[in-house]
């Protein structure tokens, strides 16, 4: 049985399967299907300072092997989140990655401060794939300097014992450049990818199907794009750990991300079709590693980047 433990910077996880932000709320509902403390970690829905209503409905449309959503970051605000959701996760003994989002740098900073020293927070995922109000709504992660500014400020404000990961959008010309900028500004790792911007037209109502007009595309449809981003970022910043995601719905899908360079993975949309998907995927990944002769998950991370000799060396040392 392969050793499934992994690390995301200083955060040690017994296994590499996490939920994805916005696809597991704060873990409570999934707790009806499995023990959330058995996950690598729960990644909570991106939280902002204030309560947010989110967007009008319709908020989703099914697409081929995917779905489009426009939730608009509905949430209770950080105070309620800490008092209720984080407290519950703490009680369960679940490792928790808190995803934060803001409309400007200050909001991210304030969120990091509120989470400072909280015993339940193992890691912070900084969702910079959201719009910057100070820049006519351009997404932070679409711009090198906006990304750097937020990540730098959060790194300075956050508990130094807590790694911070920048969550990137694939909707950019060169994700490697953004990743490097985040790395240079102090990110301890990178989460990729967020959804792709998409649109569906309702052919009977003659309007965009979603209340928010455009929405985020997720699910297996985007997996090849996600893997490409992980591959490119692994090459651009080989020293930073990657939390990979995008369309993972089986252990072999997860293995693709690991081989491409992810140290752990998040399972998002798959949960909607199968609430126990994370546990199933964990078991499938373990079996897949065993079958392939990996003694440890960590041996497989980035394996597809190695040349034949390097692979041989890595396998012989550890098997």
């Amino acid at each position, binding site marked *: 049985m392969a050793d499934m433990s992994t690390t995301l910077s200083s955060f040690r996880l017994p296994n590499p399967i996490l939920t994805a932000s*916005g*696809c597991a*709320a704060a873990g409570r*509902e*999934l707790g*009806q*299907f499995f023990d959330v403390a058995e996950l690598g970690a729960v990644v909570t829905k991106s939280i*902002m300072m*204030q*309560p*947010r*209503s*989110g*967007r*009008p*409905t*319709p*908020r*989703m449309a*099914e697409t*081929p*092997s*995917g*779905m489009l*959503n*426009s*939730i*608009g*970051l*509905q*949430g209770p*605000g950080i105070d309620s989140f800490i008092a209720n959701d984080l407290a519950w996760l703490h009680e369960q003994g679940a490792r928790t990655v808190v995803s934060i*989002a803001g*409309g400007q740098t200050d909001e991210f900073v304030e969120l990091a401060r509120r989470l400072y020293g909280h015993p339940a927070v193992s890691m912070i995922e900084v969702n910079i*794939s*959201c*719009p910057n*109000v100070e820049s006519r*709504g*351009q*997404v932070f992660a679409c711009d090198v300097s906006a990304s750097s500014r937020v990540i730098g400020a959060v790194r300075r404000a956050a508990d130094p014992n807590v790694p911070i990961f920048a969550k990137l*959008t694939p909707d950019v010309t060169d994700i490697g450049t953004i990743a490097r900028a985040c790395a240079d500004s102090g990110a301890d790792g990178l989460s990729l990818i*967020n*959804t792709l*911007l*998409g649109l569906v037209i309702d052919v009977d109502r003659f309007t965009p199907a979603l*209340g*928010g*007009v455009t*929405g*985020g595309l*997720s*699910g297996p449809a985007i997996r090849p794009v996600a893997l490409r981003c992980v591959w490119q970022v692994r090459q651009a910043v080989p020293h930073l750990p990657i939390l990979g995601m995008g369309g993972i719905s089986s252990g072999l899908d997860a293995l693709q991300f690991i081989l491409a360079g992810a140290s752990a993975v998040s399972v998002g*949309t798959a*949960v*909607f*079709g*199968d*609430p*126990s998907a994370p546990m199933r995927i964990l078991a499938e990944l373990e079996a897949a590693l065993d079958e392939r002769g990996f003694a440890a998950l960590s041996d497989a991370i980035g394996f597809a980047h190695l040349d034949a000799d390097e692979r041989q060396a890595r396998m012989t040392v550890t098997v």
Partner: protein
Amino acid sequence: MSGPVQETAEIFSVQSVGEYKQFTLVAPGIAASARPGQFVAVSVGGERTSMLLRRSFALYDMTPGGEFAGTIQFVVAENGPGTQWLVRQPTGARLDVVGPLGTPFRRPNDPVPAVLVGGGYGTAPLIPLARELVAGGSAVEVVIGASTAARLFGELVARRTVGHVTVTTDDGTAGQRGLVTDPLPELIKKIDAQVVYACGPMGMLRAVGEVAREHAIPAQVAVEESMACGIGVCMTCVLPVRGDDGRSRFVRSCVDGPVFLADRVRWSDVGRLPDDLVGAAGMTRTPMRGGAR
């Protein structure tokens, strides 16, 4: 009420009822705890399908296991590709089902006269409710309607359960021509109803709510909103609903519903973002470009 479970359920039978198919599944885990008003979420399309999301169906029957394994029933209207696939599944096929989901209809502790209003397949969840109410000694009236006779559901079983049923169709092909809300005031008066239960299209629920309000009685209505997860984790299925504190929020219809008090739902704001919604101010401060991010 215990939580939902995920089961591989064998199709015991599929019956045609008008334009609908009535499914009976062997699903002991779900049958064990399901209550009227709750629903199940069914995977569609089979292996390697391009359809990722489950389809939701209100429970029409839940028979916990005794001598035989527990079964559930639901009624499917052919709509898009997912339901088209489902209605073609043969007896003996296995479906991946999650349930019971959502909040059930709340029943009075003591017998109270009640009118049940069903539109189309929306009658389905009212039948087990009617059975419980009758068993509990409540006076019950049922009115069911549809656009046309073939889209009526449950006339016979409703008649068997409560003794009589009022039927309306838009086109007059069965019962009286008109809407289910036409006979409603009279039925409320007839038994001095203290509550209305309804399930059907949004417009109907809203209209039923208005009639109930005119009679100063509550209406519990089961809504149908597009759902990605059905278990409360995705936030796609929200409706603007007034809370006990008088403030309105976008509330998940999969876990906080599908049964709502009609006068709490802000029907005219469905599909809109009213300014006074909790957190609406946060939206204008940070307009989103689209997408979840």
